[in-house]
Structure formats: structure tokens, C-alpha cells
């Protein structure tokens, strides 16, 4: 059923890879996908436990390197991590298998739950539940956002006035964009990101090679 194969070496400097079956790869990501309830940090821990601690598909250093690298990936970091690990283990086939395991079963359940919800949407009880749960989900989302942004803001404060000013400008621009109905959000995001990168570049030049 599952075929065994050697994974590809992506460059000469990387270690020889181990034989892993397609079935095992799918199974691992299938379990990770089904258990990912708590959000990013919990899922990351699940991946690390499965891939590094239990099966030695990656060393801790390789995992850390990947996690650092996916911070600059577009889109969802955990997807990028899945892609990198899948590719390392079984090449492009591994990418598809890992993503499929992670997303298809839980995606199907999500669609099924949505269908179920839509069926009972107008029931009084369902309406009441939504009125209770939606504000809670928003509150949770605020905390998740805060936890995501706090280390960055602290970093800005450590770096000094220029970084703090840049961050303040970005926050102001973001809030304004939230209220402006016609302004493209992506423009604000790109301008903010580029501004931050430019300020960092100038700072880097000014401080010399050592940060």
C-alpha cells in the first residue's frame, strides 16, 4: 500500500536522508491535523513532538532552522513548516502528502460542521449560542493577536526611538485602514512592512556589521 523511497537531498551540505514511507508521512500529519485545536503554539508542539522527538526525521537544530525560516514565509507559517518537512522527507510528493494529511480530513470536518450549522442556523437555540460564542471567539482572537504582536513591540522598544515611532505609525495606519472602506488593505500592509524593513536597513547600516 505505502511505497518506500529515499528522499531527495536538497543540497550537498545537508545530511543524507532517511527512508520514510508515504503512508507514515500521511498518518503523522493526519493526526496532527485532527489534534490541532488550540491554535498555533499547540500545533507547533505537536509537529515537533511527532517529527523530532518521536521519529527523528529532523534534528532539533534543523527544526529550529525551519521554524526560523518560515517566519518570513507568506501565508500561514505552519503550512510552510509542513511543506518544508514534507519536502525534506519525500520531495514534492512529500509536500502533497503532508499537506493532504494536515488539511483534507480537518477541512472536510470543517465543511461538514458548516453544513450542519447552516441547516440549523435559524433555530432560536442556535441563534442564542452564536450570540454567546461569537463575542467569546472575538475576545480569544484579541488575546491571540496580542500575544503575536507583543514580542515585536518589545523588540521595537529595545531598539530605540526610531523603531517605536515606526511601530506607532504602522499601528495608526492600520487602525485608520480598518475604518476606511475604500482603501485597499493590502496596500497598507505592504507599505507598513516595507517601511519597517527600510528603517531596519538604515539602522543596520548605521550600527555597522554588528547588531
Amino acid at each position, binding site marked *: 500500500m505505502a511505497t518506500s523511497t529515499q528522499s531527495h537531498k536538497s543540497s550537498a551540505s545537508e545530511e543524507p536522508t532517511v527512508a520514510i514511507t508515504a503512508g507514515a508521512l500521511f498518518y503523522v500529519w493526519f493526526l496532527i491535523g485532527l489534534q490541532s485545536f488550540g491554535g498555533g503554539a499547540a500545533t507547533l508542539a505537536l509537529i515537533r513532538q511527532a517529527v523530532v522527538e518521536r521519529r527523528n526525521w529532523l534534528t532539533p537544530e534543523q527544526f529550529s532552522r525551519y521554524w526560523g525560516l518560515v517566519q518570513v514565509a507568506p501565508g500561514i507559517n505552519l503550512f510552510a513548516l509542513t511543506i518544508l518537512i514534507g519536502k525534506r522527507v519525500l520531495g514534492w510528493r512529500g509536500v502533497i502528502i503532508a499537506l493532504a494529511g494536515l488539511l483534507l480530513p480537518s477541512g472536510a470536518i470543517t465543511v461538514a460542521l458548516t453544513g450542519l450549522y447552516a441547516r440549523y442556523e435559524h433555530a*432560536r437555540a442556535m441563534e*442564542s449560542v452564536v450570540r454567546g460564542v461569537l463575542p467569546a471567539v472575538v475576545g480569544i482572537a484579541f488575546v491571540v493577536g496580542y500575544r503575536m504582536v507583543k514580542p515585536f513591540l518589545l523588540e521595537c522598544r529595545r531598539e530605540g526611538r526610531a523603531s517605536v515611532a515606526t511601530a506607532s505609525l504602522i499601528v495608526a495606519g492600520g487602525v485608520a485602514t480598518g475604518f476606511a472602506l475604500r482603501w485597499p488593505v493590502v496596500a497598507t500592509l505592504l507599505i507598513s512592512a516595507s517601511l519597517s524593513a527600510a528603517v531596519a536597513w538604515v539602522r543596520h547600516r548605521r550600527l555597522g556589521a554588528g547588531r
Partner: protein
Amino acid sequence: MNDLVFFWLFLKASLFSTGGTGNLPSLHADLISRHIATDRQFGQSLIIGQISPGPSGLWVVSLGYLTYGLAGSLLALIAITLPPLLIVVVDRYYRRVEDHPSAGAFVRGLTISVIAVGAVVLVKVLLGSGGSIGSALAIAAAAAGLTLSRWVPVVAIVAAAAVAGLIAYGV
């Protein structure tokens, strides 16, 4: 509105974002202004995303289904899966890019911006939740406090909120 436009809006939002709900601000602006989705549907899909298994980005699959059926859910799923594939290109051609001072700062600026816009969007979604605004704010604050404290798992908070809603608004 056709498949391609729908797909592009989801793809665009996911391309310039980080994290599971980084695409919320852009998607919200685009879908609301084109009357493809309502605030209510955003709220509903965020709830379903919270309670169903899988990484946090799957809420858009729910939104895709609510607004455009099964095709919508598939298009949304593909749209969030494509941008992260670019990491392979980055890894191949840009050694140690993540150590470049501007790369980290780019992501930092992007993240702060996403969260700032997202905060406003979340408030809009909150106000569209139905029921009294006072209760909604109280529940949001309580849920935020409990989440911050880490004493109570998120699942329990959501369950408690569901019960609170049933008590407050009846069955």
C-alpha cells in the same frame, strides 16, 4: 462574481499575511464591499474555525462554503495553501534570508499592521453578533481575560459562552 474573482480575493488576502487569521482584514474589506459575505458570516466561520479540528487557518474554508458552496470551500483551501509554497523557493535561493535584518523587520511591520487592522475588523464583527452590545462586550472581555490567564482551555471558554448565550437569549 465568478470562481476566478472569488479565488483571487482569497489568494490575495493570504499572500500578504501571517498566521491563521492574517488574511481576515483584507478578506473582510473585499468580501463585505462586494456583498459576497456579511459580518455575520465572518463571525459564523470564525466560530466554526475555532471549534473544528485543524490549523487555525481553516476558518476561511468555512467562509468559502457559507458564501459559495463546496466550490467556495475548495477555492479557499487552495488559496491559503499556495502562498506558503513559496517558502521552498526562498529556502532554495536565499540562504539565511531569515537572518537578514530587513527580512525580520518586514515580517514585523506586516504583523503589526495586520493586527492593527484586524483589531478594528474584529470589533465590527463583534458588533454584528446580534444581541445586546453590552453583553457582547462583557463576554468578549471575560473570554479574553480567561484566555490570558491560561487557567481555562479555549474549548471550555467557548462551551461556557455557548451556555451563557442559551441562558441569556433562550432556546
